[in-house]
């Protein structure tokens, strides 16, 4: 039995090694999701991290996706809560459901993950390859 257990341990260790992203080498990843099964979070992570520089503490924000993708949008909003800790999260009322193109209620800033943002008004305060951040204009 010991031989079987050792062979099993070796096999499983080899499987763990094979699952590690060796092809990426030892370079420091840009985001915590670069080689993970949650790579779809990378664009939002990068945009929201940069948005921290333009969204001041205490301000509120909502995250949208372009083109609209309600499930991803709900997850990106949660990512915003993690990466913008001193700001107030103002998600759409029913996460995961399709939303209107209007500016979300109570949000001072709108983070739009996606290359072609719709014109939802407000002033663009950050524009990157990952999307835009807009500040609400005077109401």
């Amino acid at each position, binding site marked *: 039995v010991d031989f079987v257990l050792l062979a*099993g341990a070796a096999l499983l260790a080899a499987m*763990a090694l094979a699952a590690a992203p060796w092809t990426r080498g030892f370079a420091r990843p840009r985001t915590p999701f670069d080689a993970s099964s949650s790579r779809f979070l990378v664009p939002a992570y990068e945009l929201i991290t940069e948005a921290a520089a333009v969204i001041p503490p205490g301000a509120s924000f909502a995250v949208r996706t372009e083109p609209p993708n309600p499930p991803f949008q709900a997850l990106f909003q949660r990512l915003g*809560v993690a990466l913008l800790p001193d700001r107030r999260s103002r998600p759409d009322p029913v996460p995961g459901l399709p939303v209107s193109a209007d500016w979300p209620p109570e949000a001072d800033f709108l983070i739009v993950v996606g290359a072609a943002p719709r014109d939802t008004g407000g002033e663009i305060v950050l524009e990157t390859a990952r999307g835009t951040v807009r500040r609400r204009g005077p109401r």
Partner: protein
Amino acid sequence: VREAAWLAALGLLPLVGAPILTHPRFRILGAAARGVLSAAAGAAIVSFAMTLFTLARRPWGVLTVAALALVLAAGLRAMLGRSPGPPLAPEDARAERRSRAEVFATFASALGVAAAFFATMSAGATSPDLFFFWGPKAQRFAAARGVDAAYLAEPAHAYMHAYYPPLVGNLGALASMAARGFSWTAATLTFPILLAALAAALPGILRGTAGRRRAATVSALAVAALAAVGVRAGVAGNGDMPLVFFETLAVALLLREDAGDAAIQLLAGLLLAGAAATKVEGLVVAVAAPLLFLTLRPARLRSPSVAASAARLFAPTAATLLAWFAVGAATGLFHEYSEYGAFFALHSEYWRSIAVSMPAALGRAGFGLPYLVPLAGLLISGRPSREQWLPLGAAACLILFLVFAYLHHVIDPSQWIAWSAARVLMPVPALLALALAVGAGPPAAPVPPRAAPSPR
């Protein structure tokens, strides 16, 4: 720098557990196991102390939390008494040469840990849940110097499950307070670090169950299986690795030949409290393992009565959860564990979907081999003995609980199962592996204490 400071702050945990694990009764476990068990016991105690601070509406401080935790640890040490106990003479590991099998097993464990470390550092094993709730909670609690009820009560944060047991959030907050900020990278590194800790501790603990060779091979199998699942399922930074850490250590202790000893039982009870304070499903093993121990191993109960053993095994979990639910009641945040539907409102129409989705989800974690290999070992080793049913029963209870939870989902849970089953069933391969240590020949005989050298 913050990463190092964050991880260094967790060095407080073994210091808190040290008063317990330096008791002479634990010397037989060996230095590595005692160090790791000190950290595990310290984690459970520190989290409990932080919950008490919240309950008393006192702000957390690193030093004040550490002081209360040390007082609690000293109290537990006092409960162990002064006697050295039954024949728990320290095993002189150097007295025996390591067999080839042991060397190979250590190498396999090291490869598993290396894979977990590299995958984590390369952003290949990050859990999204770290960013969705474990991390934000710790980050916010550190800033608020306590469990921030207003934050958890906000509708925008409803997905964070306010009722969820507090240990991971508490300890993350403590490290963040010490490091003056949360470190996402450091949080992910808890996965390979806890895996390495298991690899270091398990052989020493299991030498009280089986011979040195079997203790080493079983440890290697458990560590390699956890590495394979953990990397593929992406558990770095979430509560799954701490949970499996507590559960594996606690069940390994209960499988020892000297598990009738009050000190071993109290330590196991403390670790099970850690499991119950980590994730909801930790409560399943925290209840099932002691019940199975008391039922299946009556011959091991050397202590005065079954009631005394039960108290040592259950009281830490009861105290931990009572304190947490008292926080819930005092803040009005929660009164029960609630997940995806009304309790016992089962959707039996999803039986078929669950029966298909669960094996499929495990299959995606390396063709299910991390679960199947330990199972194959068990099948080869013959009919399970009575004592093997302790880990096997605990694993079965966990699986049944998860099916029960999935049946509560108001919509077809197949998607939920797809992203959760492999990681929430991570304790199963570890428990199956532990069962292989039982009945595998006599445990390593304790070496009698050497006579003091004669002055002549």
